[in-house]
C-alpha cells in the first residue's frame, strides 16, 4: 500500500476511535505506525477532524422541533392496526350490517365539501410522501397554481378532462373520482383536490371556504359553482390561510 492509498483510506477513519477495531483500516493504521511522515499527517488529520466534529456538535436544533416531530407523527399515525384486532373487526362487521339495514330504509346522504376536505387530509397524511408530484405532464398546471394570484379560490380554471389526459393522480372519495395536483406556493407545498360539484354537497355558499385541520395538517374546501375543491397542506393552518388571503 502506498502512502497515498493509506491516506485515502485513513481519511474515512473517525476521530473518536470507533473504527479502531475495523479490519478495513488495519493495514493503513499499521503503516502509519511505521511511517513517521504518515503518522504525522494522520495525527494532524485526526486533530482537525476531531475539532470539526466537535464544532458541528455545537449546532442545536430549534427548540420546538422535537415536539413538532412527535405531534406530526401522532397526527399522521395510521389507525388501521386498531382495526386489525378481532374485537374491532367484529364491531366493524356489526356496524356495517347495521348501516346496510338502516340504509335500505333511509335515503342515503350525499357527501359534503367537509367530507371532501377530511378525506383529502387523510389522503395527504397517508400518501403525501408516497406519490411523485414531479410528472412532466402536470408541470404546466403546477406552474399555474404556483403563480396563481391569491386568494387561490378565485378564478381557478382547471379542466378535469385535461388532468385525466395528463395522467394526474386520481383517487376515489365516497365513490367519486377526485383529482389531486401538488404544487408549491412560496415556501410551502399544497395539494389541490378537484371534484365535480354535484358529487359533494356544499357546506357553505359558493366561493366560501370551509376550514378543517389537525396540528400541522390543514384543509379548506369550497365550490366555485362548477367544481368542488379541497386545498390541503402539512405546513400548518397559517400557511393554508395565507392562500385564502387571511
Amino acid at each position, binding site marked *: 500500500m502506498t502512502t497515498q492509498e493509506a491516506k485515502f483510506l485513513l481519511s474515512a477513519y473517525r476521530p473518536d476511535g*470507533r473504527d479502531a477495531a475495523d479490519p478495513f483500516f488495519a493495514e493503513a493504521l499499521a503503516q502509519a505506525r511505521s511511517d513517521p511522515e504518515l503518522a504525522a499527517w494522520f495525527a494532524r488529520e485526526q486533530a482537525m477532524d476531531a475539532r470539526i466534529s466537535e*464544532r458541528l456538535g455545537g449546532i442545536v436544533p430549534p427548540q420546538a422541533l422535537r415536539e413538532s416531530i412527535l405531534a406530526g407523527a401522532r397526527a399522521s399515525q395510521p389507525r388501521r*392496526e386498531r382495526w386489525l384486532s378481532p374485537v374491532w373487526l367484529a364491531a366493524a362487521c356489526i356496524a356495517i350490517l347495521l348501516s346496510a339495514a338502516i340504509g335500505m330504509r333511509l335515503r342515503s346522504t350525499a357527501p359534503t365539501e367537509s367530507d371532501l376536505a377530511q378525506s383529502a387530509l387523510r389522503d395527504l397524511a*397517508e400518501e403525501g410522501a408516497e406519490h411523485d408530484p414531479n410528472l412532466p405532464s402536470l408541470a404546466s398546471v403546477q406552474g399555474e397554481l404556483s403563480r396563481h394570484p391569491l386568494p387561490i379560490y378565485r378564478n381557478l380554471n382547471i379542466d378535469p378532462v385535461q388532468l385525466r389526459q395528463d395522467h394526474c393522480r386520481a383517487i376515489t372519495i365516497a365513490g367519486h373520482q377526485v383529482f389531486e395536483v401538488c404544487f408549491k406556493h412560496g415556501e410551502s407545498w399544497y395539494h389541490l383536490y378537484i371534484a365535480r360539484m354535484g358529487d359533494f354537497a356544499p357546506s357553505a355558499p359558493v366561493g366560501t371556504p370551509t376550514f378543517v385541520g389537525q396540528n400541522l395538517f390543514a384543509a379548506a374546501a369550497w365550490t366555485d359553482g362548477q367544481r368542488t375543491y379541497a386545498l390541503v397542506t402539512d405546513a400548518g393552518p397559517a400557511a393554508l390561510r395565507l392562500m385564502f388571503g387571511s
Partner: protein
Amino acid sequence: MAPGLPHKMQEEVFAQLVDSHYTGLYRYALSLAKSSSDASDLTQQTFFVWAKKGHTLRDLNKAKTWLFTTLYREFLRDKRLSGRVTAIEDLSPREQEFPSAEPDPMARLDSQMVMEALQEVDPVFRAPLTLFYLQELSYQEIANALEIPIGTVMSRLSRGKAELRAYLARRAKGGKVIDFPNAQGQRP
C-alpha cells in the same frame, strides 16, 4: 410506527427514536438544506416517513442508517422538484491539496462557521462529509445511506475535506471566500 406493539409502546419507541436521532438528523439536514426552516422540515419529514414505513424495517438496529438514508432521499426529492439537482457526472474534478494548517483555521471558528463552511462544500461531497463529521455512521453505513460504493465514499470524503479546509483556511485568513461553482457555473 411499529405495528404489533401496543399503541402506547409504539409512541414510546417512536419518542426514543426521535430523542436519539433528531439532533444528528437536523445537523445533517442543515448542512444539506442551508436554512434552519428547511432543515427542520426535512427532519420532520424523515420521521413522518418513519411513522408510515418504519415498521417495514425488520432490524431496528438499522434504524439510524434508515433515517439518514431517508433524509437524504427526501432532500434529493426536494432538489429534483426545484430543478436544482447536480448530477455527479457534471462535476469537474477538483482534487486539491490540503492547504497549510498555518495558521490553524479551526482555532477561531465556532459551530456556526463550521456549518457555513460545510454548506459551501459541493453537495455531492457535503453529504458524506457531514455524515463523517457527525460520527454517527461508519464509512460502510455512509455508503449504505447514500447508496454509493465504499470507494466513492472515500473519494468524496477526501475531496470534500479538501474543499472544506480550503474554505476554512481562506476564511481564517480573512480573505475573500470564492464560491465553488459547479460545471454549470451555478451554485447548487
